[in-house]
């Protein structure tokens, strides 16, 4: 086991309730620097709710919720993002009536006061050449895969330490899915820490270091990606072996 010190995100007893409905019922979760951690589970298991709760977009309670030494309790999303954790939401949710460039500019809004947003943007366009070609197009006119690239690029503009990705492969053609997974691997190689929610269990476990399996708002199973891949539960339920 690694020392608790290198954990970037550490959550104990997280619950998320929408009125009387409890979507997440007390989960513990740790993400260490430089890891890709994946959250797996069926529809409605509480994966998206967990991510939304972490960035403060879903109503949440927790015994302990610490990111990079900061207690997240009660912090609004904008503050959490400024501290270095951001979310690429499910369904991409690019600002479709704004241009690609404007989407990226807003993503870097946190830097506008200091730093050099132009540099970050140049960096981003080098990483996503397709976006450079489409800079002045409306984001809504991009294909699904391009929109996902834009959503990820927009999130990266805030230069996060921890990136939460909610179903980045949803609704994309298989070749595009491969490119998205390549990208996620690349981002990790450049030092980004990633918490990934996916329904594509096989590919997630291939790039992830560790994983958690959620069911009915609880952690049902956790371990290294390797151990999860070979566990009979995962084999039966998701990998269809």
């Amino acid at each position, binding site marked *: 086991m690694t020392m608790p010190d290198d954990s970037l995100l550490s959550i104990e007893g997280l619950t998320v309730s929408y009125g009387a409905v409890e979507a997440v019922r007390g989960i513990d979760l740790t993400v260490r620097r430089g890891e890709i951690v994946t959250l797996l589970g069926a529809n409605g298991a509480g994966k998206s709710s967990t991510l939304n709760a972490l960035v403060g977009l879903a109503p949440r309670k927790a015994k302990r919720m610490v990111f990079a030494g900061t207690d997240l309790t009660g912090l*609004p999303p*904008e503050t959490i993002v400024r501290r270095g954790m951001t979310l690429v939401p499910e369904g991409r949710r690019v*600002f479709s009536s704004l241009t690609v460039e404007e989407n990226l500019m*807003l993503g870097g*809004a946190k830097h506008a006061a200091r730093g050099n947003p132009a540099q970050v943007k140049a960096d981003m366009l080098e990483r996503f050449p397709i976006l450079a070609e489409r800079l002045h197009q409306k984001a809504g006119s991009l294909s699904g895969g391009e929109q996902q690239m834009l959503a990820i690029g927009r999130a990266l503009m805030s230069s996060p330490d921890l990136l939460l990705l909610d179903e980045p492969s949803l609704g994309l053609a298989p070749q595009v899915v491969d490119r998205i997974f390549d990208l996620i691997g690349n981002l990790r190689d450049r030092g980004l820490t990633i918490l990934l929610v996916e329904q594509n269990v096989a590919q997630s476990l291939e790039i992830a270091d560790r994983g958690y399996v959620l069911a009915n708002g609880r952690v049902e199973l956790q371990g290294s990606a390797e151990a999860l891949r070979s566990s009979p539960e995962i084999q039966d339920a998701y990998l269809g072996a």
Partner: protein
Amino acid sequence: MDIFLQQLLNALSLGGTYALLALGLAVVFSIIGLINFAHGELMTVTGYAVCFALIWGLPFPLAVIAGLAVAMTAAFLMERVAFRPVRGASGTTLLLTSFAVSAILRVLFQNLISARPIPVAIPASLSGVVTIGPLHLGMIQLISIIVTLAMLLGLNLFLHRTMAGRAMRAAAEDFAVLRLMGLRANSVVATAFAISGLLAGVAGVLWVAQRGSVDPLMGALPVLKAFIAAIIGGLGSLSGAVAGGFLLGFIEVILQAYLPESLLPYRDAFAILLVIAVLLFRPQGLLARKTLVKL
């Protein structure tokens, strides 16, 4: 033909004021889903501010600037005091809150200022008539058309060329995701209210300049018209609000000009009838939310 052109200019002037007001409603609605019925009181407060500034001896241009500053401050305070505590509540709660703010302000105007209209000393230079070829146009109407166009252009530039403007367009599309950009929800909403206050202020100055007086209920009727205009255009769509404002102004002026005299008292009824006809064919409004915030 000249008469028609003349009426067209009248329609531009009246419709422009409706458009500014409808735009103010739409800017706020598109972001927090609130139909601010206290928007009319922002007009009224502008009128009083201009009125008292003139009484205190400020020159007219300074009085106008004071009026606009008061309108923006009032809008900002309205959000801070009344609407922020209920942000995210149901549409009904928001609507009732705005009715309450409106009612409280009217009562305050009546009791602290006067229930009667107070005359506003509009400079004589503004009451002249400009003759362009065969057309006679009131100076104030001309100014009102120019000011409206300048405001629309200015707002368009603001929305497309500044970060705050881009943030507002993004907020109208997806407020939650905008917060993920690290932009403070409160500042975006406050900006929206300040802009809606400015728009109401400009409309208020134009309205007062044409009427020459201000009373506690001054804003009630125009804001109701603006609400209708915003609905015609498609609630929440900024370009729709502008289109709806001009269309309503046009309908009213044309009816005023061409209805037989015996039917004139029913002018507003006919106007509303035409609005209903528009909505029967375009229930979403002329420019529904898809084209949001393009001006």
